[in-house]
């Protein structure tokens, strides 16, 4: 390669392992999301405000099992916050992918699957502040739980909300960018409302209850409440969320193939 000697011959040498470089990309994506104050305010302020408002009205009543409504509502509003964070962060993945920036990103050692992995991980991280913010609001409102209950609630909610990142991603894949934002918001509101995250499902008309109980949002809320109110673990919810996850992965795969066919990548 005698014809191709460089004038600046000293280059930075990095380990050949792609893990370190993918981690670098993850850290940058995460920092970019945290700096997006409008997005962070949206995913934190809305559930916190709604929690403080509803808990102010009903919070002092007692729910089934002798637990204060303020505590149950804290979990369902945290679920709602996490749902919004996951779906919106999921939708952002597709908007970045369909913008020309993705093409520039692909002229680097980053692979398409590396991109999606990092972006899904970033979206999952968006759920954390949404949950924590509502938990803190709960503490301020006087909710007191043992440490292991806090940790268990946080843990099961994170897992139960993970598929909602794919829901955001799927909406991004199947709708145009302008409509995707509206569809994401509407879907999120429907899932929250019908899934009983704002009002208990018992308050809804009887015909709606089977619909509610087929939604992943309802079961995410139920699973999140389990460490707080105890009783039998809602295994049925694991099944239903599992079915939704499979369905979303199939839709995602089809949407991705369609996107590859219609836009040049």
């Amino acid at each position: 390669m005698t014809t191709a000697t460089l004038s600046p011959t000293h280059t930075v040498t990095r380990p050949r392992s792609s893990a370190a470089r993918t981690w670098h990309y993850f850290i940058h994506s995460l920092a970019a999301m945290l700096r997006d104050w409008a997005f962070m305010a949206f995913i934190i302020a809305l559930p916190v405000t709604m929690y403080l408002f509803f808990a102010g009205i009903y919070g002092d009543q007692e729910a089934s099992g002798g637990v204060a409504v303020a505590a149950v509502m804290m979990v369902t509003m945290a679920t709602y916050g996490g749902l919004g964070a996951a779906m919106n962060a999921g939708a952002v993945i597709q908007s970045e992918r369909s913008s020309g920036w993705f093409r520039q990103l692909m002229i680097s050692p980053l692979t398409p699957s590396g991109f999606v992995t990092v972006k899904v991980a970033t979206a999952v991280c968006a759920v954390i502040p949404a949950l924590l913010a509502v938990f803190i609001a709960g503490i301020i409102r006087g909710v007191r739980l043992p440490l292991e209950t806090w940790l268990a609630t946080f843990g099961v909610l994170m897992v139960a909300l993970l598929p909602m990142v794919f829901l955001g991603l799927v909406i991004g894949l199947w709708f145009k960018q302008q409509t995707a934002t509206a569809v994401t918001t509407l879907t999120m509101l429907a899932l929250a409302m019908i899934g009983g995250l704002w009002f208990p499902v018992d308050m809804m008309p009887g015909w709606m209850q089977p619909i509610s109980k087929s939604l992943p949002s309802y079961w995410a809320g139920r699973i999140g409440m389990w460490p707080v109110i105890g009783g039998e673990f809602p295994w049925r919810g694991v099944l239903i969320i599992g079915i939704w996850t499979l369905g979303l992965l199939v839709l995602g795969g089809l949407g991705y193939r369609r996107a590859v066919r219609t836009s040049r990548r």
Partner: protein
Amino acid sequence: MTDTAIQLTGLTKTYGTLTAVDRLDLDVPAGQILALLGPNGAGKSTATEMIIGLTAPDAGSARVFGLDPVAAVRAGRTGAMLQNGALLADTTVGRLLRMMHGLHLNPLPLAEVIEMADVGKILKTSTSKLSGGQAQRVRFALAILADPQLIMLDEPTVGLDVDARRRFWRIMGSLTDSGRTVVFATHYLDEADEFADRIVVLNEGRVVADGTGAQIKERVGGRHVSFTGPDQDWSTVDGVVGVERDGERVTLNSSDADATLRALFTGPGADAISNVEVAPVRLEDAFLALVEPVSREERAA
């Protein structure tokens, strides 16, 4: 190690009924500065995308330094500036460059890239608030981060004013001096003539001419000889390859201007000829002459 930077063999890409790139064969030796010249829709962008692995060919193959285009990109051997390439929104130029720098295996030191691309003053500027020229400098910085041996530029100076364009090519010049291979797509003909060692003219996905700027001009005649004279058949005069007439004014397209002038002034009608001018064929005319017959043939087909 191979001395061929790019090797295209029967490269073909169709979109629906449109054949964007049609059985393209092209070898680019390492160290060459090549211009892909052609009108809109000639297949320049599609060919570029296949060379950088963004688009997979329907038939044929592209090899970059003997590697698959995607492998060459991941190894940092190819850098590219895309046409109107979008930048990541809602971040600063500095953050964007640091993020991309961390992805590459053996990148140039970031400080050096910043200096070469002249983006030092806009590091804190948001990517959505850049002027056309500034954005182009950022894209250029992204293209050279990996210390690539091959730099692909898809219409790098489109939308830039004359100053910014000159500035861009001055920066490019410093890079090409280091022996890298540069391929740029353009429809600015002067740009191709001025900065490229070799011009490949594309039309409808095919190569219609391949050579230096001078050779391409020669293919359609080297000089325009124009004068005021009688209406007669001038095409038989020595060296003439084309005749145009505009009122009294005759323009002869000549491959040998000396022979043409000698024939004109020694011939029988010499007295009737006045106001003679000799001018080089503009690359623009050469370009049109190359592209048009193909289009006509296509329409007939």
